[in-house]
């Protein structure tokens, strides 16, 4: 995913054409085979999701499978009004608040760590592998450890303390890795230029590094928000008595066998799409503005 954002910058920066296939003339037969494979992959990627979005708009007779039984918003209303489906509204609220907090912390810490990792320092490998470890460790095990730790200190587990920390242990490695990819395109000569013009360290960060890296920072925010908003395994043992949305969905998959489950899927995916669209739109906007500035 970091590649994409790096590449989006490449699209505006000097063009590096990576198409290695003959750029003109007949396409080889493998093109058609691989194009079909790609189309099938995309179909399998989106097909099932689209099915549940369609099925969530059934009326009261609706079931879990096709064919569609009528059209209505019954299951969406059901979702937010029925006690049976749990506290969907509250968990929505908590999940979004938590995701915003996680996003802010992830952006700040990842940015600073990205600055730190630009040059080697004694013990940098320890921090790096600690981060990789946090990324690959089984989430449920980490969550249990965090839960037990809070118990041992006599603290209550809650979504804004233990679950916040547990989610950061998941979003930060992603954020820092994206930052690495973004920083690798930053030329340190720009720092030198800023210092030569009399900028202080803070001025260099605020007036040079942050604006240059803005698209990458938006990307880190996208990771922070969506990974937190959908995080499940690490929150399970750490969220305390009040559920976040993925936990609510999890308990619904075990109890609820009505299309309200699909309706919840539709609603939460719409939120994800809004966030993804806003982030990618912001990145494109920044790039466009720059492209224009360069031409003037």
């Amino acid at each position, binding site marked *: 995913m*970091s590649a994409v954002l790096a590449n989006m910058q490449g*699209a505006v920066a000097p063009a590096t054409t*990576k198409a290695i296939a003959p750029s003109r003339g007949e396409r080889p037969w493998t093109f058609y085979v691989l194009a079909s494979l790609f189309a099938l992959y995309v179909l399998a*990627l989106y097909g099932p999701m689209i*099915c549940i979005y369609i099925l969530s708009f059934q009326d009261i007779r609706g079931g879990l499978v096709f064919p569609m039984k009528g059209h209505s918003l019954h299951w969406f209303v059901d979702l937010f009004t029925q006690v049976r489906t749990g506290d969907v509204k509250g968990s929505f609220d908590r999940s979004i608040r938590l995701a915003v907090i996680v996003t802010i912390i992830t952006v700040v810490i990842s940015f600073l760590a990205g600055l730190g990792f630009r040059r080697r*320092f004694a013990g940098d490998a320890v921090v790096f592998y600690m981060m990789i470890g946090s990324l690959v460790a089984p989430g449920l095990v980490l969550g249990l450890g*965090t839960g037990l730790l809070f118990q041992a200190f006599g603290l209550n587990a809650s979504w804004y303390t233990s679950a916040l920390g547990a989610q950061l242990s998941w979003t930060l490695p992603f954020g820092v890795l994206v930052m690495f990819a973004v920083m690798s395109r930053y030329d340190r000569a720009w720092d030198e230029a800023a210092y030569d013009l009399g900028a202080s360290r803070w001025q260099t960060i605020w007036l040079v590094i942050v604006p240059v890296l803005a698209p990458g920072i938006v990307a880190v925010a996208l990771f922070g928000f969506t990974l937190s908003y959908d995080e499940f395994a690490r929150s399970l043992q750490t969220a305390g008595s009040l559920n976040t949305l993925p936990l609510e969905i999890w308990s619904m998959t075990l109890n609820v066998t009505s299309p309200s489950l699909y309706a919840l899927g539709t609603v939460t995916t719409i939120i994800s799409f809004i966030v993804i669209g806003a982030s990618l739109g912001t990145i494109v906007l920044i790039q466009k503005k720059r492209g224009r500035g360069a031409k003037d």
Partner: protein
Amino acid sequence: MQSSQTPSRANLAGWLYVSPLVLVLVPFFVAPILVVLAASFFATDGFGGLTPGFTFSNYVEVLHSALTLKLYLATIKFTVLTWIFTLIIGFFVAYFLVFHVRNQLLAIGLFLLCTVPFWTSNIIRMISWIPLLGKEGLINQALLATGAVHQPLEVLLFSDLAVVIAYVHQLTIFMIVPIFNSMARIDKKLIEAAIDAGASRFDIMRLIVVPMSKSGIALGTIFVVSIVMGDFFVVKVMSGGGSASVVSAFYEDVGVLQYPTAAASAVLLTLVLVAIVSLILRTVDIRQEITR
């Protein structure tokens, strides 16, 4: 300031920048792992109470149980199958995007199309297979309509097959991204030189593309293996309770407050994971790979 900095000042600055990261990872990654490690040596009263102590009995119990072997075999089976499918699909999707799509903007667009679901809920993407694979699902309806089968197939949902399908569906992206990244860095001139030297397209694939995508494959493998081995909810939901993996058994143990045995099993799993990941890391410098 750069060149005049003494090494100790540079070290201090580096640590200052990463200190917030360390301040989060120590209490929420290092400490929990140590707590689980400690708990694996504790004794229990069987009702969730832990008695600090030092006993190997939890490990003995885990290692002596026939269930452990079964769980590991099941986990390894899921991991290997998922790895093979994600690798094949991921490699060819990345290959198609890098080497066959001529318009770079289109390639980026198609790449984004593949990554968007990564930013949506895994649980929702998993349950979205129900209307397709279920006993009355679309696939069975189609098969019955064409007369290919006379009874609806029951193995489609709530089976090992469904588990692997859900994994491949969720994790192929973790192969596509790093492989795409390595392939996009292959110099076009290298391929042209190979063509000029008379290499067939198969030779180019075998001698240039595959070796130069190795680091991407290694990175993708780390992601896929660690996620499948650490997963429990796909196994639990998609197998309909019929199958279990090491972590899903861990989840059940925690549910009945058997913390020490759960912890011992988690420590063993972590050791296996660390061994696999460090084996892979010997073939690729992951840090250089990412920062390059």
